[in-house]
């Protein structure tokens, strides 16, 4: 992998160069303490020290609500046309979110490839940026604190410069196009990078052990913990909306007043919603809130492991950060674990 150095004083100019590769999106401030990925044109708009945005990157590729096709009794159906050559660059993506995208790529490229997702996914370039974990981050425990792939460029802070890993040929084009802004990596930079890497690893404040967790979940299937969390849960769906790897959606039709045409749409769904497991005939497989909460944890930490060989949680901390009831995945995991040990 090609690795170069970008002095921080050149970053603004580099961002300027990037505009010619596509529309740049990066974390910007919203409200007092929140951040979102939004279009930017220059460095001054970007919040480089943002820990997490409200929504992860899935919003770009798997939209909260989208029209899958328009239908008409006479004309059949047609898929809405999007600008196919419009590229966008998502800048400032942390390792956990890149892992989240890799998981979504895997899910949506399964037996039935999701063409809606990949039509947009193909047009996006990812520029990663490393970060300093806060008290909600536990990506080290989920093995998602570092990325080897899934980016076009990845910037790591080494004080007055960024060490830039080039992940793809288009990433190389971006560097080459702004060649004069980059420097060779020297011995001193390599040492700094390694020291920073250790420093970052040691700065995690939250840790949970997930390696043997699927088995523990099976053992604790009837645990009282699920009832307790069910009591707290508001079923508001926030955790699913903000989760980088929640990919459930509901498909429905919206009809026009002409009584012969309409749109088939899909929107993000959540297994916490009361009607999520409601089927024709009126039976609800998960009518109790506690069973829905349990299902969410089981799918992330148990079912996904069986299917894909790893949990789908990337340790970003969003579910804890935005849960109005303050439900904390780390606490739930630890409670289940301590019950097993007793």
């Amino acid at each position, binding site marked *: 992998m090609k690795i170069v150095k970008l002095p921080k004083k050149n970053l603004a100019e580099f961002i300027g160069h990037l505009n010619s590769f596509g529309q740049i999106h990066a974390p910007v401030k*919203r*409200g*007092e*303490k*929140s951040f*979102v990925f939004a279009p930017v044109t220059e460095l001054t708009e970007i919040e480089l020290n943002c820990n997490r*945005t*409200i*929504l992860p990157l899935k*919003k770009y590729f798997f939209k*909260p*609500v989208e029209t899958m096709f328009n239908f008409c009794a006479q004309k059949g159906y047609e898929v809405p046309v999007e600008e196919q050559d419009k590229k966008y660059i998502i800048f400032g993506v942390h390792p956990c979110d890149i892992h989240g995208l890799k998981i979504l790529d895997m899910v949506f490229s399964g037996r039935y490839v999701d063409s809606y997702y990949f039509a947009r996914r193909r047009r996006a370039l990812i520029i990663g940026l490393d970060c300093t974990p806060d008290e909600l981050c536990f990506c080290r425990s989920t093995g998602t604190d570092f990325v080897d792939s899934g980016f076009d460029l990845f910037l790591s802070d080494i004080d007055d410069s960024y060490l830039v890993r080039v992940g793809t040929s288009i990433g190389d084009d971006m560097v080459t196009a702004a060649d004069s802004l980059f420097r060779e990596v020297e011995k001193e930079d390599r040492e700094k990078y390694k020291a920073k890497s250790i420093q970052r690893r040691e700065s995690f404040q939250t840790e949970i052990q997930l390696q043997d967790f699927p088995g523990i979940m099976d053992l604790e299937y009837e645990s009282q913990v699920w009832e307790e969390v069910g*009591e*707290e*849960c*508001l*079923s*508001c*769906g*926030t955790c699913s*909306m*903000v989760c980088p790897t929640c990919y459930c959606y509901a498909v*429905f039709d*919206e*009809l*026009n*007043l*002409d*009584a012969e045409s*309409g749109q088939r749409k899909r*929107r*993000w769904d*959540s297994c916490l*919603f*009361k*009607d999520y497991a409601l089927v024709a005939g009126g039976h609800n497989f998960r009518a109790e*809130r506690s069973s829905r909460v349990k299902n969410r944890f089981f799918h992330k930490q148990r079912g996904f492991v069986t299917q894909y060989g790893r949990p789908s949680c990337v340790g970003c901390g969003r579910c804890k950060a*935005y849960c*109005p*009831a*303050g439900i904390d995945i780390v606490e739930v995991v630890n409670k289940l674990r301590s019950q097993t040990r007793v």
Partner: protein
Amino acid sequence: MEKPTVGIYGLTGCAGDQLVILNCEDELLDIAGALDIKFFPMAMTGNDEECPLDIVFVEGSVVQPKEVEMLKKLRERAKLLIAIGTCAVWGGVQAMKNEIPRDEMKRKVYGPEGKVFDVISAQPLSNFVKVDLAISGCPIEKEQLLHAVASLLHGDLPRLPTYAVCTECKMAEYPCLLLEKGQLCMGPLTVAGCKARCPSYGQPCRGCRGPVEEANAASEAKLLKEKGFTWLDIQNRLRTFAASADSLKIESIKEGTNA
């Protein structure tokens, strides 16, 4: 296809939901073309008060004995009875103080003039008749109304959101007013459909659309107490629009949280 015959009635309320129908300016001709509107006194003359109806839209809550009779008659006349607006669905703001005896209330508000009419406690339509579809909102959302009309024309009932305002708030990435500003936001308990309009303007959700199907008010009350709100603050907000909803009754919440 024969156009369905439709009546649009208002009981006690501000008539805001009927106004939403008239505010569908771009779609009004389509609506008028698709429906055979027999009764809509807010918009037309020559209303028919006796004909059978395929669909009746009823706004407002029931606050007088004569409204009970009127509603029952409408139920008999119509194949489908659709409650529109939070008053019709949940009782609305006029149901906020139902615990005060009506005679006392009448005396306080109207003085001796109040003797000329009868009142009962403000109640949703479903306390008296079968409601086939409830479109809540204060007022209703135009999109939901149009969506409902289109579905009904197809012989279907519409699929309306059953999830909370939080879902739409997060989808739009508005900063959480509960967590970020510690405001008394009803988003987790309130049914979506407004696209989190109030949070989009930095205002907490007041719960005007009524509760979600399984509102966990005990958990919401607990977290609001932790933020420093009193039972009175919480109670006032919970019962502002949907006092008739069992899930929002403060008495049961207090018991549940051992307060």
